[in-house]
């Protein structure tokens, strides 16, 4: 048995200490909003704390964490959460987003707190969408919190999710009323800017009413090179016929660890498209738990990762087919260079009676060096017979025949390799539904592959300089 099992890590101690006074569960919320917290939020804090007290932080002793070891982070000292920052700079002074043709409603979290002027802390947009601080929304819309808050999150799944429920500071709240279809994407930029090592816990709640539609862009950025431990829980509800396009862009410094858990409940005929685009980060773990609870729901989850150095990425994607006639697909592709390591654990669960299920899963990887590694675990657990399920996983290299073909046409080896890597991930990036975003991600991929994309000073979308589009000198269509 591993020593880790009984060891108490410094971080666990400080997390427990951060919540010493269990009789005053409001201290985290209060430091921000001075208001009384919704009872359900408070109760889930207590519940989360109780669970964490027993489980502590996850270590590789736990099956689901066997391939992702964060224990070295647990030995560090962190500032646990931060006080709410003063709004002293406009968002666009901290970052600016200058992708041409890509117009979004931008919202920001800074060091775990909703960052805006007081009048914009919770807004109703022209199209009726309500967006703003979760801490504020819980006071203003208690009914919605009664119905949705902590309904699908699983604080018992592991220590990060338990402690997140207990000590989160703030997060984003989005409510899209029935029949509202937004053309303009909502963009959340989560920034960390502290001169200390910091652990930040945020929590988002997103509710899409019947027959509504939203594009949501969720960006995780580092602004400096300080060590960060970021944990996020996001609960998403898609009512009947709703559609959510969710894009996660992750470009964090190599000292940062991100553990983010997204829980989705989908009603009849709802549609979820997810694109997880991981460019940089020390350790990134993305967990999805998607429950297709009524007939006709569809979830399309894809992801791409380009890791190098000693970076580590771990995608855990569980799709639960609870109802008949639902469809899902998982497509994750990645390139691992240097000492980078990756994990993919797809999980399709088809419940008894979830007949006529169609579920597909694919994970493909390219290892560029003999020091890179990948663990891939595409799982199927199926209890209904009238289903079409398949999965596949591959690990390999760039196709030597293709490489030779390109070089024979006069392309130098390094360029040819870049081109093939780029071509490899386009199956994922091509799924991005917003043209301007797809183009800029495309450019980012190229830059990333050339090693030009490190963490940006500001918003990652600013990485694409429109005047200087990144191009390989080869016409892809000719391959």
């Amino acid at each position, binding site marked *: 048995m591993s020593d880790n099992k009984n060891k108490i890590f410094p971080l666990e101690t400080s997390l427990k200490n951060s919540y010493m006074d269990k009789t005053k569960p409001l201290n985290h919320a209060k430091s921000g909003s001075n208001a009384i917290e919704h009872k359900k939020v408070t109760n889930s804090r207590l519940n989360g704390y109780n669970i964490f007290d027993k489980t502590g932080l996850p270590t590789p002793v736990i099956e689901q964490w066997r391939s992702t070891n964060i224990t070295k982070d647990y030995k560090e000292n962190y500032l646990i959460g931060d006080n709410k920052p003063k709004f002293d700079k406009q968002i666009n002074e901290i970052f600016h987003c200058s992708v041409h043709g890509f117009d979004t409603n931008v919202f920001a979290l800074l060091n775990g707190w909703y960052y805006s002027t007081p009048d914009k802390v919770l807004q109703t947009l022209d199209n009726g969408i309500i967006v703003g601080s979760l801490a504020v929304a819980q006071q203003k819309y208690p009914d919605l919190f009664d119905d949705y808050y902590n309904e699908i999150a699983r604080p018992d799944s592991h220590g990060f999710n338990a402690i997140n429920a207990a000590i989160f500071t703030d997060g984003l709240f989005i409510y899209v009323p029935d029949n509202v279809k937004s053309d303009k994407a909502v963009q959340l930029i989560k920034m960390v800017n502290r001169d200390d090592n910091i652990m930040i816990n945020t929590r988002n709640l997103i509710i899409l009413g019947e027959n509504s539609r939203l594009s949501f862009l969720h960006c995780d950025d580092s602004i400096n090179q300080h060590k960060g431990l970021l944990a996020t829980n996001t609960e998403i509800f898609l009512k009947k016929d709703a559609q959510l396009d969710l894009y996660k862009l992750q470009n964090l410094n190599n000292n940062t660890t991100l553990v983010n858990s997204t829980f989705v409940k989908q009603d009849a005929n709802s549609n979820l498209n997810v694109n997880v685009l991981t460019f940089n980060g020390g350790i990134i773990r993305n967990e999805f738990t998607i429950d297709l609870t009524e007939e006709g729901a569809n979830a399309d989850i894809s992801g791409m990762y380009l890791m190098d150095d000693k970076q580590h990425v771990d995608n855990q994607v569980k799709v639960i087919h609870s109802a008949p006639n639902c469809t899902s697909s998982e497509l994750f592709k990645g390139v691992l260079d240097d000492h980078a390591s990756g994990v993919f654990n797809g999980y399709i669960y088809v419940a008894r*009676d979830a007949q006529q299920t169609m579920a597909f899963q694919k994970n493909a990887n390219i290892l560029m060096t003999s020091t890179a590694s990948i663990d891939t675990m595409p799982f199927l657990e199926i209890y209904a017979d009238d289903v079409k399920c398949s999965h*596949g996983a591959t690990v*390999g290299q760039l196709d030597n025949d293709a490489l030779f073909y390109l070089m024979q046409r006069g392309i130098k080896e390094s360029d040819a390799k870049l081109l093939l890597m780029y071509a490899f991930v386009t199956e994922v990036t091509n799924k991005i539904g917003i043209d301007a975003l797809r183009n800029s991600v495309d450019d980012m991929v190229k830059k990333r592959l050339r090693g030009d994309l490190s963490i940006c000073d500001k918003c990652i979308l600013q990485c694409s300089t429109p005047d200087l589009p990144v191009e390989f000198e080869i016409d892809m269509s000719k391959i």
Partner: protein
Amino acid sequence: MSKFINFAVLFIFILNRNQMKEEKENENILDEVTTSEYKYGFYTDIETETAPKGLNEDTIRFISKKKNEPEWLLEFRLKAFRYWQTIEEPNWALLNHPPIDYQDIIYYAAPKQKKQAESLDEVDPELLETFNKLGISLEEQKMLTGVAVDAVVDSVSVKTTFQDTLAKHGIIFCSFSEAVQDHPELVREYLGTVVPHTDNYFAALNSAVFSDGSFCYIPKGVRCPIELSTYFRINAANTGQFERTLLVADEGAYVSYLEGCTAPQRDENQLHAAIVEIITHDDAEVKYSTVQNWYPGDKDGKGGIYNFVTKRGLCKGNNSKISWTQVETGSAITWKYPSCTLLGDNSIGEFYSVAVTNNYQQADTGTKMIHIGKNTRSTIISKGISAGKSNNSYRGLVRVSKKAENARNFSQCDSLLLGDKCGAHTFPYIKNSNSTSVVEHEATTSKISEDQLFYCQQRGIDTEKSIGLIVNGYAKEVLNKLPMEFAVEAQKLLAITLEGSVG
């Protein structure tokens, strides 16, 4: 103390392929299936000698003493036992069963027979009858197909046939106990080198209490001219079965080895925790085939064998090859992952599996392919078939270590569901640390298509036979890997296992 004993039966078969007529292939095996009852569920009333129920160091000393073992082997057992006491039963498999009371099991049972029979006259007539019922003749002359049989009943080997023929080639094939007495140096050299007692919980248990099994050594450059076979049978009640097989193929040697298992029909569950170790040296090849047909329990899930088996092969030498073929139709619970460690450069590992579960059976089975040497290759073909209220999981690991330059793996894991109350699951683990390797895994889950069923029915074949036909076709790729005699047997078993599964 029980008067009767369980036996493991070790038989050695020799197959003469030339005698196989093409007709055999055309034989419609399904016609021969007349009953869905478990055919081997009888119990033989044989006088047996047993150890007292329960497990402690005294039990182990008792077993070791009974078998007249050298001190080092007793130490081997005790070390394993002490380790076993410190660990817990694994729970990661997708299996449900009530806790096993390890103190409620008899760990040693042997037919009362002084030593291995020199001639058939010395074998208990009841035993001979048992083997005849199982369709296995111990009388060399009477063997239709020329199969050499070594029979081990409950915990001890009863009879080995064709030993003389084998001896001519310098092949050692005998019961494990005999090997300990006659070839202690070989046993000591290889025992536990592929499956150390620390491998897992059940391996530790087996290492402490194993009773008998078979031992086989093929010397340098010898291609074993006959198929060797172990036939295991559990006979007595309340008894665990812990046999241990050790197979060594020296440089350039080849052997094809078959293993079959049956047990009487009983209401209580019985534990079977065996170990098989295979070592292949340079250029050697071992083909290991299993048709596992332990009693699966009745249609309500009562009774049946708990089959927790550790099978590992080590391709120690360059250009060596180990091939596992298994047809798993029996047992209430199957927990089994025959593995290959591909240590030698250019070595090859193969795993072909058909696992069928019906009624309340549970199977969590698959393989591990550990690529360490350069240019190592592995192939995994797994066909799972679930019916009734059963659950059938494939669980497999493919690991490519940093040094395994140009390693290749291909895995294909298909599941077929018959009915809407069963489950079919696939849990592949791929861990790759080498950029020059290629690993591919594919899997599908489906049911028998209405079109296929109607097509067969339109030709006059009833639903049940149609399903048998289609399922056998589905499993063909694996069944083809079995020696002919076994293939026919296996096809019958598939059909029998699935009888009554479709309403």
